[in-house]
């Protein structure tokens, strides 16, 4: 949340000095002030690196230095211009991943290598040498005739399968590695100079190098009155990747842009640098709150991925040889046979650290997800209630307000699980405290929610008020846990509380201490139904460069420059750990974060930050969450209704309808906007919102099952269509519709005044059933769907079985023991498959095999439930109350057979107009074996 306001009662409470700062630094603009954020040209290393154009690489592989062990290959590279030696390490990792690491052979001091993001040291597989000569080396990557060719002069890597090049590195010669050096004007290196002087062949290059050395921004840089002292000098790295045959690339969130990444030749590269962007603009490559340096490349034959493990400021350039061509031009190429292979070229540039890149070779999208999950882990398995509806506002004023809103949901019979408190709940923005007047008895308030089986989230931001009467601050200061400024003092910046310190979350001891602060006896007023929200963890520093921390601030031996994009990741990690520990390791945590990095999926949910109540912001929520899902972060949502500004009633309703079908479903609103609880817009709109929230609740079993899968496998919950239909080019750029799992297709209405939408239903031999009318539609078509305000176009795939709980109650927890209705949608072959996953919904006991996991399948007119996890033990009171078979024909008799061998006839109804067969009250327990036979 970011806001500047001077109205209401708040103004008079703000510290006068903060007011002064506000007045000086923000003179009343509303949209994003682009001038506050750097372009590539304003970021010295990006400008420097981007000035290098494709050409012959100065790097050469010194094959004689090659060492091949069972687990890795190493060899040295030399830059012929400056004679600096690099060390290349090449690993073949389990699961069809190649890791390429490049560092200086002998750096002046160690360069930063990102810790804690990989879940373990990735297990390797042997590399074998296929051939070697003076030009290069060929290594086998094991599977499917895959090999990697290391070319010596100039250095490049090509990964091949058969005769196809899958990916080439440094093929455009853009490998660059700014070696650490002594500052020339302070201390020269006589050795090096002498060497260069005595080598006449190198004089031209020497001159060139000298030229480089005088470039601006190498040893210090200023941006808008902020100066960045760079004691380590230039340290940027860069590498290019060529992707032959690829026209579609995805990923590298977070950007407010289309799902399919655009070429960047005509503008700035996509930027990855976690920033608190006030009122961000859409459809541009500017950096936002989080960064996941993972890109997916896809064509109809193969999906590959690049994971660039670097936490410094990073820019990604994308170009394509087909980008400028029209469809007609491409056709002409095809007809004339003159076409060169389409190719996408990508280039990564980072400010510091080393090159450590994981090349995931697929070949399917699912393989990519598994490969990436094997490196950084999977989505944490949230408590079931976290998948339900969240009601948030900046701010619910006091305990009475919370109680009134809670009662409002009951009065209007709308379910909800979580009510949220933003920063105003604290005592003067001191996190872990409560405002003594407005929230005088938090436990009483929380108990009131417990009584309704509901929960609360309270915000805990990482900036800590500098105040000697504040326990948290005193502890952090006395333990020396604050990030230091370049002079060694505690770094201080302006944030909500005024002057604030920033704990160094990169320290394991700091994180352990932070986690311990969530213990019930430390965090006064907390209870087991209180969960946590980490905002402002980019980190946001109101008076810092680009509203974040100075890059020369120090985290122990490392500069903030090296670790910036990791900060939010660590904050959420420590917080989630705290929530686990307070329950003695029993309960699953729920933590929402705004900033994130690769691996953040392991710690909770993310949201797309401070969006606005505008139709385009509703639309962009889809590609933004799809992009996050592709890189492992499934638990994503956007503020329903839009954070800034006030939505029209139509927009609010449409946003609820969209948000109800996105993973993290939370309404939120800015302090200065009028109230917008669901019942404030007239009975008709209350009914529309009630209906869609209820739809969400009926589908909770399916959502929960999807998250279980995501947790087990790393597959995204909310998926672009191409992930399930990788050979259908019509799906490659779709980002106005999406799949939940593989069985539900959602095309939300995101246009104002829409009378209809056109949804693409994929799958040549597939059918899709409208979940509201049960009407059947064929796949591989663009379907026009007329819509009214109550319409949410959602389709169930023929061939799937989806469990729902149709008894919607006050909260998800109240539905725990309720019975299931199974929706069996038959495909043209009259078969269907699905699953049912049940556990206690909130503990880690599922790790101890306390769950039910059943496969449901329909074939040959028999629907059966079989145990997918015979070793697991769990019992449920839930039963099967109804089975709805879509696309069925009318049977004469329906027989249920349960494990004991008992048989009974089931009553049924058949709707001939829609071919829907409804089996009445079969009644068997959801956890047992059974078959239902249609005759």
């Amino acid at each position, binding site marked *: 949340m970011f806001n500047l306001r001077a*109205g209401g009662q708040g103004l008079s409470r703000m510290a006068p000095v903060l007011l002064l700062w506000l007045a000086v630094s923000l003179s009343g603009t509303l949209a994003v002030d682009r001038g506050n954020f750097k372009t590539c040209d304003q970021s010295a290393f990006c400008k420097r690196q981007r000035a290098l154009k494709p050409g012959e690489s100065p790097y050469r592989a010194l094959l004689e230095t090659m060492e091949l062990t069972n687990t890795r290959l190493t060899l040295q590279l030399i830059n012929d211009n400056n004679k600096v030696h690099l060390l290349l390490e090449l690993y073949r990792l389990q699961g069809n991943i190649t890791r390429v690491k490049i560092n200086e052979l002998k750096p002046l001091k160690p360069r930063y290598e990102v810790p804690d993001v990989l879940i373990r040291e990735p297990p390797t597989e042997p590399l074998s040498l296929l051939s070697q000569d003076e030009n290069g080396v060929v290594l086998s990557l094991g599977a499917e005739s895959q090999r990697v060719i290391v070319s010596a002069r100039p250095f490049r890597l090509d990964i091949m399968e058969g005769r196809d090049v899958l990916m080439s590195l440094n093929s455009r010669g853009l490998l660059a590695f700014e070696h650490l050096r002594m500052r020339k004007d302070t201390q020269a290196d006589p050795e090096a100079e002498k060497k260069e002087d005595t080598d006449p062949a190198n004089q031209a290059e020497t001159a060139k190098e000298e030229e480089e050395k005088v470039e601006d921004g190498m040893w210090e840089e200023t941006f808008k009155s902020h100066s960045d002292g760079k004691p380590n000098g230039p340290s940027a790295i860069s590498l290019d990747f060529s992707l032959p045959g690829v026209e579609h690339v995805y990923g590298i969130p977070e950007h407010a842009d289309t799902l399919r990444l655009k070429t960047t030749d005509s503008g700035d590269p996509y930027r990855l640098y976690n920033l608190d962007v006030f009122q961000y603009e859409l459809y541009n490559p500017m950096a936002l709150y989080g960064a996941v340096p993972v890109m997916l490349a896809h064509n109809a034959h193969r999906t590959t991925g690049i994971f660039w493990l670097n936490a410094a400021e990073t820019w990604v350039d994308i170009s394509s040889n087909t980008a400028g061509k029209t469809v007609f031009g491409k056709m002409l190429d095809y007809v004339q046979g003159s076409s060169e292979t389409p190719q996408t070229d990508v280039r990564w540039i980072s400010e510091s650290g080393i090159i450590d890149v994981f090349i995931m070779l697929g070949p399917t999208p699912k393989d990519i997800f598994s490969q990436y999950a094997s490196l950084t882990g999977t989505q944490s398995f949230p408590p079931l209630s976290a998948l339900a509806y969240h009601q948030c506002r900046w701010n619910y004023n006091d305990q009475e307000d919370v109680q009134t809103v809670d009662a409002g949901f009951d009065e209007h019979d709308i379910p909800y699980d979580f009510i949220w408190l933003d920063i105003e709940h604290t005592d003067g923005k001191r996190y872990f405290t409560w405002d003594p007047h407005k929230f005088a008895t938090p436990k009483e308030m929380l108990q009131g929610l417990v009584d309704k089986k509901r929960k609360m989230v309270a915000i805990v931001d990482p900036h800590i008020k500098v105040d000697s009467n504040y326990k948290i601050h005193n502890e952090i200061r006395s333990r020396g846990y604050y990030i230091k400024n370049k002079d060694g003092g505690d770094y201080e910046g302006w944030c909500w509380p005024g002057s604030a310190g920033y704990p160094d979350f990169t320290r394991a001891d700091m994180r352990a201490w932070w986690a311990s602060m969530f213990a019930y006896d430390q965090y006064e007023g907390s209870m087991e139904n209180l969960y946590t929200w980490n905002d402002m963890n980019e980190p946001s520093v109101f008076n810092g460069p680009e509203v974040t921390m100075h890059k020369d601030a120090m985290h122990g031996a490392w500069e903030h420059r090296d670790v910036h994009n990791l900060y939010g990741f660590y904050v959420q990690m420590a917080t989630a750990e705290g929530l686990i520990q307070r329950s003695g390791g029993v309960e699953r945590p729920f933590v929402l974060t705004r900033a994130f990095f690769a691996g953040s999926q392991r710690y909770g949910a993310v949201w797309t930050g401070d969006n606005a109540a505008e139709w385009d912001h509703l639309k962009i929520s889809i590609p933004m969450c799809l992009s996050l899902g592709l890189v492992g972060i499934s638990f994503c949502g956007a503020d329903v209704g839009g954070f800034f500004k006030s939505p029209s009633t139509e927009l609010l309703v449409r946003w609820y309808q969209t948000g109800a079908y996105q993973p993290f479903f939370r309404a939120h609103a800015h302090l*200065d906007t009028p109230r917008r609880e669901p019942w404030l817009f007239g009975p008709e709109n209350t009914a529309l919102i009630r209906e869609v929230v209820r739809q969400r609740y009926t589908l909770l079993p399916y959502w929960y099952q999807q998250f279980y899968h995501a947790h087990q496998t790393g597959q995204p919950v909310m998926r672009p269509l191409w992930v399930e239909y990788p050979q259908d080019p019509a799906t490659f750029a779709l980002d106005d519709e999406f799949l939940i799992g593989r069985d539900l297709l959602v095309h939300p209405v995101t246009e104002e005044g829409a009378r209809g939408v056109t949804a693409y239903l994929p799958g040549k031999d597939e059918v899709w059933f409208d979940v509201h009318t049960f009407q059947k539609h064929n796949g591989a078509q663009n379907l026009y769907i007329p819509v009214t305000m109550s319409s949410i176009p959602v389709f169930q795939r023929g061939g799937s079985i989806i469990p729902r709980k149709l008894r*919607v109650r006050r909260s998800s927890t109240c*539905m725990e023991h309720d019975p299931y209705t199974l929706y069996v949608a038959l495909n043209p072959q009259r078969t269907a498959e699905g699953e049912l996953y049940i556990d206690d919904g909130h503990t880690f006991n599922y790790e101890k095999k306390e769950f039910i996991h059943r496969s449901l399948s329909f074939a040959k007119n028999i629907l059966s439930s079989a145990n997918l996890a015979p070793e697991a033990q769990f019992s449920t009171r839930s039963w099967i109350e109804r089975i709805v078979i879509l696309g069925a024909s009318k049977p004469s008799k329906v027989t249920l057979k349960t494990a004991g061998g008992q048989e009974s006839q089931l009553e049924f109804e058949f709707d001939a107009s829609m071919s829907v067969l409804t089996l009445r009250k079969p009644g068997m327990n959801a956890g047992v074996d059974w078959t239902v036979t249609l005759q």
Partner: protein
Amino acid sequence: NYLLLLLLLSVGVSAVEIQRPRGVPLSKRQFYEEGKPFTCLDGTRTIPFDRVNDDYCDCHDGSDEPGTAACPNGSFHCTNAGFRPAFIPSSRINDGICDCCDTTDEYNSGATCQNTCRELGRKEKESLQKMAEIAKEGFLLKQQIIQEAKRGLEDKKAKLADVQTSKKDLEDRVEALRIVKETAEQPEKEAKERHLKAWEEEKAVIRMEKDKARMAEVFLELDDDADDFISVAELLSHSELDPDSDGSFTEAEAQGLLGGVDKVDTVAFESVWNNIKEKYISEANADTPAPVETPQEEMREPEEEEEDEEDEDDDPDEADYKVSPLKKKDDDNEGTMPPYDQQTQTLIDSAQKARNEFDEAERALREVDDQIRNLEKEISFDFGPNAEFAYLYSQCYELSTSEYIYRLCPFNRVSQKPKYGGSETNLGTWGKWAGPEDNVYAMMKYEHGTGCWQGPNRSTMVKLTCGKETVVTSTSEPSRCEYLMEFISPAVCQEPPSLDFGAHEHEEL
């Protein structure tokens, strides 16, 4: 599937058994006849009776499952003996949360609910009694208030009539005085003009004499050789006289100025003087620079503070002060106008007297107009059906919270002032009665208060409830810059109905 209701009446002597499906209110009992097919209450289908409350939803309207959570739109009836019966959504049956005070909604969830109906009934009875007492007293007060308002209204109407009469007299007086004034002003004006004209003529004579004296002086100054003639050469020493100001004052040009001759005597110089006097610079002054103007700083000094500046703008003396240096010069040369002669002064004095008397009368008339407007406004103001809110007019009520003092001046404005310094914020000025259609006097709306940054203007809703006193009981800001104030007053008390607390306990039995 049956609920056996064993209800003990408060009298405690007899027990009554009532059989009906769980969750069905007594009023609908006849639709659920045991053993007979049940027709959904919407008439859409008929099902065997054993499907009523069998935990499966057969009716679209949910009427077959009044006692289970099977239907999404069902409702469950709690008898709540000892308290008020109620309907709850059937989704709240067996959800582990106690909703009915008689615990009947949680018959199979494991939730341990206490029957709290009697306690609730007792409390409700107490609070109803208390409220009734308040309402009763409040209503009595209201009657007084209404009587007072009536009297007040009559007083005001009478006063209005009085004032309107006096207004008529005043208007006549103003007209009469206007004529007196105008009659007195005409001779005053003429006499003043005469006096001024005489003064102007006198000034012209003085100016001419001064000019002549200066000419003579200049002649002497120019006549360097004292031969009583001004020659071309003598003129040439004054380069400022160069007619084309081209930097060179030639002899030909000088001769031209002298009228084409080489020299002129005092008489001929008269016509030359007219051509050169504008440019001529006295030799006595030539070396000393022109007097420096009043330093700017001095002029600006009073502008230091914004508020002062505003005051100055309204101050007519300031203008005089600023131009005075120039005026002064003229006055030095020409002297001040002589005082009016006795006759003129007498005319002026009598005209001034007439003016003052007229102004005073006019002011009195304006005051009366204001008085009439205010009285009319108050008389025609919507103070409720019986003017019961009239007593709030021109009163103010305050509520002090931990941070602010809120002030409600009914029919005028609402404001907020920080307790510990800071300026007052307007939370809205009187807008309208804003209660629901059937009770429009239950709510007041104050609007167009101080604007919020990036938001609306502040506004306040004042909710009125019945009480013995007139007092603001609470304020809140439910939405940004939209305030809610609770205000109690006898004026909203309704006539209490005759009370019968026992009634609802029996209605189900």
